[in-house]
């Protein structure tokens, strides 16, 4: 299957300690149980896909991972140590970067200004303290080139970029600022075919730099094109984690749809359910 191999150029790391490990995470909002025991881990240099239909709890789960929500129960280990993120900033500083669907980009501003928004490097002191424009422009051009996008100019406004390119800017920004884990919330959901393939290629590049990627999607084809492992979430629970090659698109699709074919899948998932 060509699509299966298009964006997968390297072997997934096998025996590496995960950067983030989440064990039996539960999250309750009042009397609503959004997450009822989710276990998930990400290793450096892998792309771990989190699949699930709408309402499965994907958003709640990644928000727990990125420090927006505190889990009601369960443990989060970051690089082997138990962590308790108080805010998204804590998680960001530890190296967990999240690219949400709105991308946190401002169309009217230049790529460079967006890239460094809120984290501008400065030169000079006192009243002459100013943004280090040369460094900012060079770093932006360089980071974007590494992601395979040649900007016309660093002062090109983000509004002139395509959806896929904007996604890439957001990813490049996260990587530039030292993300060890990159959480991508449905990065391909609003994109066309070409743009999707650009973003998937970007994910592959990021993974090769040793960043652990969490790819949230409800599109099985996109996930299979780039993922190393696949975890399916349904009604707030993990239905299991499958390695690449152990599962077919049809099986993943069935799992996402509600696990009606559980019995049949149990074998192919290798007893991980």
């Amino acid at each position, binding site marked *: 299957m060509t699509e299966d191999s298009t964006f997968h150029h390297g072997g997934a790391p096998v025996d590496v300690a995960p950067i983030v490990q989440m064990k039996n995470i539960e999250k309750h909002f009042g009397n609503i149980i959004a997450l009822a025991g989710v276990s998930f881990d990400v290793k450096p240099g892998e792309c771990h896909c989190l699949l699930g239909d709408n309402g499965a709890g994907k958003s709640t789960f990644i928000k727990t991972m990125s420090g927006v929500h505190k889990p009601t129960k369960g443990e989060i280990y970051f690089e082997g140590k138990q962590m308790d993120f108080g805010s998204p900033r804590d998680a960001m500083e530890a190296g967990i970067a999240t690219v949400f669907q709105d991308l946190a980009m401002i169309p009217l501003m230049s790529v460079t200004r967006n890239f460094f928004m809120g984290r501008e490097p400065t030169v000079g002191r006192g009243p002459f303290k100013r943004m280090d424009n040369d460094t900012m422009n060079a770093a932006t051009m360089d980071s974007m080139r590494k992601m395979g996008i040649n900007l016309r100019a660093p002062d090109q*406004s983000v509004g002139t970029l395509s959806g896929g390119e904007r996604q890439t800017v957001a990813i490049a920004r996260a990587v530039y600022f030292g993300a060890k884990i990159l959480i991508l919330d449905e990065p391909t959901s609003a994109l066309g075919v070409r743009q999707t393939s650009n973003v998937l290629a970007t994910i592959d590049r990021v993974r*090769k730099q040793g960043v652990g990627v969490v790819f949230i999607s409800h599109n099985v084809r996109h996930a299979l094109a780039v993922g190393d492992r696949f975890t399916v979430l349904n009604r707030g629970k993990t239905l299991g984690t499958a390695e690449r090659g152990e599962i077919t698109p049809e099986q993943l699709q069935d799992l996402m749809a509600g696990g009606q074919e559980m019995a049949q899948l149990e074998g192919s998932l290798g007893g991980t359910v």
Partner: protein
Amino acid sequence: MSDTTPEAVTDERMKTESLGSRLMKRPELGAIAGVVLVTIFFLITADSAMFTLSGVVNFMTPAAQLGILAIGAAMLMIGGEFDLSIGSMVAFAGLFFAAATVTFGLPLIVAIPATFVFAALVGSLNGFIVIRSGLPSFIVTLAFLFILRGLSLVGLKLATGGSTQLRGVRDAIEGDWLAPFFSGDAFSGPFAWLAENGWVETFNNGTSKVPGIPIEIIWFVIVALLATWVLLRTPAGNWIFAAGGDPNAATNSGVPVKRVKISLFMVTACCAALVAIITVMDAGSTDSRRGFQKEFEAIIAAVIGGCLLTGGYGSAIGAFFGAIIFGMVVIGLTYTDFDQDWFQVFLGGMLLIAVLFNNAIRKRVTGER
């Protein structure tokens, strides 16, 4: 990434942009084009005296007074908010300043900083209400337009015992060493020297027709340069654009949006205070109609200067030229045979053209299709 480097060198989309299309992206382009158009218009229709040195000083003085306000308004608009209370703020700060110098007899070194602090407090109150309530700044500052105007009237009557004009500022500040920085003309020495040598126009008695550069023009340039520096070269400038462009995205990226916006309200109020101090010292008195309708004129100048009403785009240099257009039109008409009341028609027309022009520019910049 060795596998991506070759692409970097050859990309068919890498095209050097023409100077024209680069200029089109500058927010101040419209205002500069406007200055050129208005200049041509008056070169044809107006008396040639308009473009002599004294004529230029004549129209630059009201331009400067408005421009200081317009630059403040422009920064606030880029930050995504409005302030309709700046005109009333001029009256209110003028009252505070005049009362400080006349009624309480404070020296300028105390009265001027106190006026700025007071204005900043009122500005921060504006900002605080807008941020905390989430209401549009349009409504909140509209309320303050009336509140501050009313307070100025009441305050004037209290300070003077029933009059709406507070006089005696000139006597109160006579001889104060700070006064030359906020009133009168700058560089009068060099101008006198130029007149002696016959290089500038002189009256019959040999003194220069232009005694110096009115101090507000100096302040106008300083404020414009300072605002441009902040907007284009500092992180704070980036935060202002971000806060106006998309407050959510900015907050998610770690920009202190609330602090930025409240600070901008304070800056705008301080611009109003600066205009109040200069004009009150110049006139020697203050009255309740000071700064009347200046909020609209300032916003018009900012919009002509390329600010979008939706925020996140604009420039201080644009507002600078917007204010100059304003000054040229309001004074220039007196040099022509036109009825001066055409001024308002002209102003409205300029605003409409500017907004249409800005809209088209924004679509180009953002690549909206």
